[in-house]
């Protein structure tokens, strides 16, 4: 049983390459006999956008300290809990920690538990790689992080866990994000959100940036997760442990913060701008900020005769759900 799914996934490029897949599945096999509904698989997407952190009031080192403590406490909550950390960089994303594959031996230093030193080592490697990738097109100057990429990676990981057998930990995704939304990622992020919704994976979001993130608000809203923007950044660990540490089973009994309003604005497909009002292709529902003769997504040709005759005000406009 444990080996069956591995055939499907052997050679998957997005898993940590230095780890043996059979080892991964071996560790899952123990869930076959002992697994409770409060065992969680927590996939943490950590924003490592250097531009954001270098300008943000909270030091990245402090933030890391809170996050590491939180990860430790998640693992302590239940012996079977599993934590995966994915770094969301500016140019790339990568797994930097997986509690099921990392053997926490030998790396323990005087100041750090093994988990943290492992993670930090990986993080450093990741940051180096991310910087090198950035140099290829350095003038792009994208302020946002690749949230869509890390979301997709998290979902892929969770899919693999789903297929590992009938008994698997309850997965959920936690986005620790700070950089502003990249409207150009709108389609990819929305697709990721909908696939998370389909596979019943809640996306929790802890947004530390200055404004609210419309993407994350929508992600949490659609998937039934919690979106929270902590006002007290020096106590962020408290928020983590109070809100985001709760497993899915306990959430049915707890009252967690509800988001008051969700920014449902969409980005247009043509200029990747966030818009309040736009045109929607009647065939494939693509969103455009201005009138096109032909849908760039599905190629449908929009009726022209009416538009020429009538005034601009009578052109078909459709309000997006806001």
């Amino acid at each position: 049983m444990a080996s069956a799914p591995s055939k499907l996934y052997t050679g998957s490029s997005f898993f940590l390459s230095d780890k043996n897949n059979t080892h991964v599945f071996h560790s899952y096999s123990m869930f076959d006999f002992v697994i409770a509904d409060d065992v969680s698989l927590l996939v943490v997407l950590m924003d490592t956008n250097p531009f954001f952190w270098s300008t943000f009031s909270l030091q990245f080192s402090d933030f890391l300290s809170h996050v590491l403590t939180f990860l430790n406490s998640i693992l302590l909550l239940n012996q079977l809990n599993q934590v995966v950390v994915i770094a969301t960089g500016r140019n790339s994303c990568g797994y930097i920690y997986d509690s099921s594959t990392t053997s926490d031996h030998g790396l323990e230093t005087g100041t750090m538990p093994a988990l943290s030193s492992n993670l930090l080592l990986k993080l450093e490697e990741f940051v180096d790689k991310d910087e090198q990738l950035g140099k290829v097109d350095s003038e792009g100057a994208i302020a946002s992080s690749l949230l869509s990429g890390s979301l997709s990676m998290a979902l892929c990981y969770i899919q693999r866990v789903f297929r590992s057998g009938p008994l698997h930990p309850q997965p959920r995704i936690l986005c620790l994000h700070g950089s502003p939304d990249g409207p150009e990622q709108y389609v990819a992020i929305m697709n990721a959100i909908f696939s998370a919704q389909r596979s019943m994976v809640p996306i929790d979001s802890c947004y530390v940036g200055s404004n609210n993130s419309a993407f994350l608000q929508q992600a949490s809203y659609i998937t039934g997760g919690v979106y929270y923007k902590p006002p007290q950044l020096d106590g962020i660990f408290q928020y983590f442990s109070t809100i985001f540490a709760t497993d899915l089973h306990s959430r049915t009994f707890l009252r967690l913060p509800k988001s008051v309003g969700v920014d449902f604005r969409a980005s247009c497909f043509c200029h990747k701008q966030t818009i309040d009002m736009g045109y929607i292709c009647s065939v494939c529902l693509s969103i455009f900020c201005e009138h096109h003769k032909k849908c760039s997504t599905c190629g449908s040709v929009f009726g022209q005769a009416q538009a020429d005759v009538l005034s601009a005000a009578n052109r078909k406009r459709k309000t997006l759900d806001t």
Partner: protein
Amino acid sequence: MSTGQVIKRAKYKTSVKDPGTPGVLKMTENKIVFRPNDPSSGTKLDMEFRFIEKHKITKEGSNKPPWLNLTNSQGQSYIFEFESFPDLHVCREFVGNALAKSEDAPKVVSDEQLSTADLQRRIKLLQEDSELQKLHKQFVIGGVLTESEFWATRKKLLDIDVSRKSKQLVGFNNSMILDTKPTSDGRTNKVTFNLTPEIKYQIFALKPAVRQAFLKFVPSKMTEKDFWTKYFRAEYLHSTKNAVAAAAEAAEDEELAVFLKDDEILESEARRKIRRVDPTLDMEADQGDDYTHLPDHGIFRDGSKEISEPQHELYRRTLSQDLNRQGAVVLEGRTVDVELEDPRTVAEALARTRNESIGNTEQGRLDRISQMTQIEDLQTPQDHPFAPLCIKDPRDYFDSQQANAVKTLNDSQAKFDRCRLSPEEAYGSLRKSIYKIKTVGLSDPIVSPEVALMVLNGLTQNISSTKSLGKNSQESVLDRLPFATKEELLHHWVSSQELLRHFWSSYPITTPYLYNKVSKLKDAMSLLYSKLEEIKAARSDLRHQVSLIVHPMQQAIEAALSHYDTDMRKRAARGAEKPNGYV
């Protein structure tokens, strides 16, 4: 009364059994003073009339001595024994007048001519409504409004209170009086009906024929008792369902027949009602649907089935008829407001109300027919004067919205771009952070207890405030604010409403009084305005939510203030021409 005082010799008793202390009773307009003959005696009395609630006297001719018994509001009584009944009568009259006067007296308080009842009602309202009390304290005691001004806008409140006090109307008894069951003593063949005025009234209301017969026969032809005996005999015949016997009895006794036959008055009333039905409705057609006269149709009542016997149709009454009549009378309610004791007055009053309702129905019926049968196509079109609705190009609105959205988007991006570093620097600082945590280790304690407490408090507030969010999104903004701020805002809201209502109702300014009032109101409003500003500044973390609520209030106040300013300017311009007085 005219002399203003009465002095009589009397004995004062504190109780009925008390032998009494002889002395002199002196009554002035608002006081009763009793001085005993023996100055050393302790039984003196000096009290005001307003404490006296009622007075009683013994009857002349009874074997009791002439006593005057005064009772105060606590139920304590003061008994005076006079030497003769004439003395007693003089005193009683005086006491009566004095008491009547002391009741009226408090009505003349203050310049506003307030009755005590009014005053009490106001006090009660203030006590019941803490919000109102706060307002009253703020504005009336604060000198912005006068007492009468404050209440002038709340007349309705006072009125409602009064109407609530008014006696509830007693409706018509819903039980079928036809079911009045006789009681029998079991030994003789006699049955006894117990009649109360209420039942009599019900019978009169239900059966106009009985009422008419009562008016016709009672004093002249038979006594009231005979009348009711006959009536119940007729009822009894009905209840036996023996139409044949009823017909036989009716043939013998003319008066009895009145009760047994169908009520003609009812019939004529029914006919009148039918005439009031939509004239285009064919009532004749419905008669075909009536199948109750067919054999084997009927309603069980008292265990027996009503089966029609056409030959005695006249003396037959069906349960449905009874029920309908009862229902109609109950729905009509109590139309007569007279004492029920005398059946004759009740009967007369009922007869009067019935006659009133018969008016000129025929003309109305014709009018309605012509209205109902109008054919729309043949009428001239009914032109309503209208002004075309003018909506500006909706695109303008949408475009402006979009521009705003793009602007905010650009703003956020610009802000971020502003503090952009070179990639090397940025990555460098990130790496430095990682290095730092590697060397320093995790901070200990990770969260200070104070911060943790703040976080937990904040979260609790956040969660509890969004509790009812799903149901009522209207309240959410206010509910998310801390309780104190919420209360303060609500109070300011009510105050601003009060001030604005008074402000706008004072325009146009026609008297110096209004002028003063408006300037006072203006000052109060500008004070309120600055208070609102303070709240906005104080709650910087919730500034957005607070300003959402405060903004409309401030707008309303601003509008009032600017109106005041323009009005003052106009006034000043005109003032040169008319130096005296206000226009």
